[in-house]
């Protein structure tokens, strides 16, 4: 029996979604335990992917976006450009293709634009401390967002004329429309973040003033300096510019065709962006990459799109030297490569093939090999530690630099990296800055607790293959010469269907909608014991709170000073998929739409219970003709156990009742009738009582069976009582046919919680029975 908090935790874990029973009163039931699903684990920012995908599947789009925003203040942006590691880890990969998570996120972000709801108002200014953030890219914006939410005054200084950092300077608008960027940045401004653009902090005085005027400084300056190739001819000829400079010029300045024949060198996302941008400006574009397609770090979709649009990619071609005439480049000499053993990056090392040089004609050459931060703003005698790659050094679990109060993150620390990683670092930095200002120790996030062994039981063999929704795209022929967005979003129907492909790994989707929408006398709480999150559903009879200071109490103090041990059972029934006949009876009985039939192909369907929508009445369990729905509670074994109390030497009466109307289970022990052995059996709803329950009681030779439930119009589950009335009518006919005395069976209803009435009914019935 659990007595301490950690025992309790283990206890819940052990009993998770299992059938266990006890004759002790139910005290509370966990709805779910937050066991991260692989998508959530894979997301650097820790976005609760499963929750928002589930909410989309349920058509709750605003709620879904709310879940995204909790960990990602830039949903519309990530919905377009995220490299979506979540999809790579999606368990659907084991069956067909991952859920199109990125496109789903974009869908909800777009949905809110069309169906606006009030934006959260200003939260900054509740505290007096001031924080400066240098750089308005995703790392800076995220930290600003989090800190403003915590009430701090946040000012972002941006060197460029518009905020967004690489989002605006690096990512072309055909992938990242500027209005989306404006809206999402507007959202952050709305909560009180100040953004000062065209403001470069430079020089000793400005830098020192910054440190003096602000309580903390966060350097999120990105990596905007393109690295040089280091090959002959680079400094000799004109017609040579690096990818970031090129993209920045196009994205912020005037769109000018760079040249007739453009060569891009590199295989990352920047290379593809530069190539597709040049193509849109009217150039003929070639990419030279020294490894093969498989090693190319750019997104597959991006590469595919580039090729579709007409960009030629030379694989296994390494630049050797620039060739030119009259001071202007005329081409790039490349050498053919072959792949050798993997190098330290894990990718196959390219080895030059002797005498295989060839020249690609070009008047403009754009290397997109890598970038580094522009550290020129730092005064000469700054004391910040810098890495040998010219990046800022910061503790990756706190984002703190060696200077107290100065933090750094994003590409400035990692070198060129993804948007979602920058967001993740923004979160860490914001938390550390808050802790720093509060005078607390900086806590590390990477405690190694990220487990990839989440207990996820999916029977892949029983999962049907469902085609991944295709993301609608602009026709390739229409893409030249303009920068309109190439990818379109899902429509509502597609989004819901795609979200429904989610396997919903783990016991609960952790959307916490139940917590926010808890009604009908239930108290649903979301709590944490510091390490794990729990969602608990407390029966209404326990209104004295068992949660103190947001922590779980393992023991409830009983009235006589004795501790009441806690029993935990899940009440959500499970369908044994391999046995389900797919008759659909359960779908028909459930008015909560909690049960769906899943098409397994070959005319086979199996039913699946949605743990969010299920309220645990058990009616489906009672009515399943194949008995393949396993209840979490109120099993037949439990009934057998209860019925052991039948004493044939006495007049034994079995009283079935529901847990809502009538009497509380605590009262049962106090109800006494002379010379009568009363056996009280309480189920969640009378809907759970199946004909076999009553037949079993009769078969054991009880003197009588009494069922007390809610009146049909008062049933907590709306339909449970109605269904039971049908079951009862059947059993009554059977009992009549078997020749039982009419009185051996009775069904009565009680309105509301009414212990007196309940006792009266029991007494009246006991009197009738001989």
């Amino acid at each position, binding site marked *: 029996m659990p007595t301490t908090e950690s025992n309790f935790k283990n206890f819940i874990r052990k009993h998770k979604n299992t059938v266990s029973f006890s004759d002790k009163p139910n005290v509370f039931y966990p709805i779910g335990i937050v066991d991260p699903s692989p998508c959530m684990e894979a997301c650097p920012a820790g976005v609760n992917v499963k929750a928002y995908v589930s909410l989309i599947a349920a058509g709750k789009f605003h709620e879904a976006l709310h879940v995204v925003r909790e960990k990602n203040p830039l949903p519309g942006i990530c919905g377009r450009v995220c490299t979506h590691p979540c999809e790579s880890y999606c368990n659907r990969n084991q069956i067909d293709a991952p859920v199109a998570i990125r496109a789903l996120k974009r869908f909800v972000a777009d949905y809110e634009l069309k169906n606006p709801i009030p934006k959260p108002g200003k939260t900054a200014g509740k505290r007096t401390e001031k924080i400066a953030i240098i750089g308005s890219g995703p790392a800076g914006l995220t930290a600003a967002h989090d800190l403003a939410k915590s009430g701090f005054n946040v000012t972002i200084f941006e060197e460029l004329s518009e905020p967004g950092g690489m989002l605006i300077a690096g990512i072309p608008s055909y992938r990242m429309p500027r209005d989306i960027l404006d809206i999402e940045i507007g959202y952050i401004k709305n909560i009180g973040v100040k953004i000062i653009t065209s403001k470069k902090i430079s020089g000793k005085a400005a830098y020192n003033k910054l440190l003096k005027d602000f309580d903390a400084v966060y350097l999120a300056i990105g990596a905007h300096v393109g690295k040089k190739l280091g090959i002959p001819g680079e400094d000799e000829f004109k017609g040579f510019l690096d990818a970031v400079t090129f993209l920045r010029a196009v994205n912020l300045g005037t769109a000018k065709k760079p040249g007739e024949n453009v060569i891009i060198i590199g295989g990352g996302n920047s290379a593809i962006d530069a190539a597709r941008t040049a193509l849109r400006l009217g150039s003929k574009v070639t990419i030279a990459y020294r490894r093969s397609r498989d090693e190319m770090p750019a997104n597959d979709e991006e590469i595919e799109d580039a090729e579709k649009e007409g960009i030629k990619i030379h694989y296994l071609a390494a630049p050797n030297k620039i060739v030119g005439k009259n001071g202007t480049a005329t081409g790039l000499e490349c050498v053919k490569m072959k792949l050798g053993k993997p190098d330290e990056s894990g990718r196959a090392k390219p080895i030059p093939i002797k005498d295989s040089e060839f020249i690609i004609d070009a008047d403009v050459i754009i290397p997109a090999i890598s970038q580094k931060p522009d550290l020129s703003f730092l005064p000469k005698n700054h004391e910040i530690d810098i890495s040998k790659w010219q990046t800022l050094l910061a503790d990756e679990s706190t984002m703190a630099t060696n200077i107290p109060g100065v933090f750094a993150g994003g590409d400035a620390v990692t070198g060129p990296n993804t948007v979602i990683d920058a967001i993740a670092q923004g979160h860490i930095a914001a938390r550390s800055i808050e802790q720093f200002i509060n005078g607390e120790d900086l806590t590390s996030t990477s405690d190694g607790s990220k487990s990839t062994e989440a207990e996820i039981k999916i029977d892949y063999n029983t999962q049907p293959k469902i085609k991944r929704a295709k993301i609608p795209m602009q026709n390739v022929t229409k893409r030249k010469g303009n920068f309109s967005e190439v990818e379109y979003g899902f429509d509502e129907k597609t989004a819901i269907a795609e979200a429904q492909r989610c396997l919903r790994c783990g016991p609960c989707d952790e959307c916490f909608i139940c917590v926010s929408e808890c009604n009908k006398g239930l108290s649903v709480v979301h709590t944490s014991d510091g390490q794990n999150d729990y969602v608990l559903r407390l029966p209404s009879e326990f209104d004295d709170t068992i949660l103190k200071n947001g922590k779980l109490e393992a023991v409830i103090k009983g009235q006589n000073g004795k501790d009441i041990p806690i029993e935990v059972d899940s009440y959500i029934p499970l369908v044994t998929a*391999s*046995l*389900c*006949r*797919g*008759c*659909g009876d359960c779908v028909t009985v459930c008015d909560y739409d909690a049960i769906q*039939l899943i098409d397994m192909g070959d*005319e*086979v*369907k*199996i039913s699946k219970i949605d743990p969010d929508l299920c309220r645990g009445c058990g009616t489906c369990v*009672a009515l399943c*003709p*194949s*008995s*393949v729905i396993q209840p979490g509670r109120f099993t*037949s074994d439990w009934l057998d156990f209860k019925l052991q109390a039948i004493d044939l030497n006495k007049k034994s009466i079995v009283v079935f009742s529901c847990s809502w109307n009538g009497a509380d289970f605590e009262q049962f022990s106090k109800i006494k009738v002379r010379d009568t052995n009363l056996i009280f059996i309480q189920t969640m709803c009378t809907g759970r009582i*199946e*004909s*076999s*329950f009553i*037949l*079993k009681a*009769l*078969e054991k030779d009880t003197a009588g069976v009494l069922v007390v439930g809610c009146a049909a119009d008062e049933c907590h589950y709306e339909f449970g009582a109605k269904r039971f009335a049908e079951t009862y009518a*059947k059993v009554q*006919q*059977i009992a*009549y*046919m*078997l*020749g039982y005395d009419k009185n051996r069976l009775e069904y009565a209803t009680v309105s509301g919680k009414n212990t007196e009435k309940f006792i009266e009914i029991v007494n009246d019935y006991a009197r009738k029975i001989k």
Partner: protein
Amino acid sequence: MNLVEQIKAANAYGCLECGKCTAVCPVSLFSNSYSPRSMLTKTIRNEYDSLFVDYDLWSCLTCRRCDAVCPANIDYSRLNQIVRTSAKDSGFKGKCSHSGAMELLQKVMTTENINQNRMDWVTNDLDTAEEGEILYYVGCAPYFDIFFDDINISTTEAAKSSIKILNKLGVKPVVMKDERCCGHDLLWNGDVENFKMLAQKNIDAVNATGAKTILFSCAECMSSFANLYPDNGFKVNQKLMHMSQFIAEQIENEKLDLREPEINVTFQDPCRLGRHLGIYDEPRQVLQHNDGEHYHEMMQNNKRSLCCGVSAWMNCDITSKRIQKERLRQAKQTGADVLTVACPKCHIHLSCTMKDDFVKDNYEMDIKDISTVVLERMK
């Protein structure tokens, strides 16, 4: 006899491992895991610990499809019954559909003094007696009708039709108001004790009526009286006839004649009537009487007939459904308008699948008991 001796008696040790059983088994055909041969191997290796908890122990339909092809003459169905009994005695149980409501009903019937009201279906237009030479054994049809009213079938219809036929022939059959379940399902799912109680009570009741012949619409009830009772040491004195046999005999003796059929029919051989009792010809004689071309055989017929998918209310699952769908597909394929059955279980199980909203369109067809089909054609 201990378990090993019983297994020996079922000839299990003679297994040649040829695998013919698994090749013809309808369960194996549609389930991923089930194999009679491997079940038998486990049994003769005494692997009871794993066998008793195996879901598949309760999957055998005891349809005797394998027994019919076994070159070593193994009674696999009986072997299953033996192991199930042993499992039950050791406290294990299988998965009963409807949470065992049917099983409970049968157990309730073993109660010494029950005073059933099971005659409500006997309407005024039906002439029955309490004593007489010919007894019509109804079976559990009145109870089935209550349980399965939601799939909208009436199994007492077969009883009503049978009695009407008998009345037309001038017979006023005995129908017992204290008739109990024959115990067939209890025996097959391993509850020998309660089966024996029911057997004794039924034999006593039948003898008390002075009946010399017992007629059945239910093939399972008939196989209980014909096979299971004698096998378990009960003596049955009466002549036993399935309604199809009785009707065939009447036609033969020119006491009964049928109009030419107007609709096409096909016939589902119940496992109990066919492979358990060897009655294949009479139902066909009846259905083909005075008929040129309205009778159609399904692809699998006679000894190769396909079971209706569930036996003794055990393991009604996706495999059952697949078997039932295949059987209905075969029935549809004949082009018949009516699927004729000769056992209420076939009637219930095939109707249930037919009523399933998701397959309805492809499989729905009229399903009638052979007595009902005959009554409609009687001159």
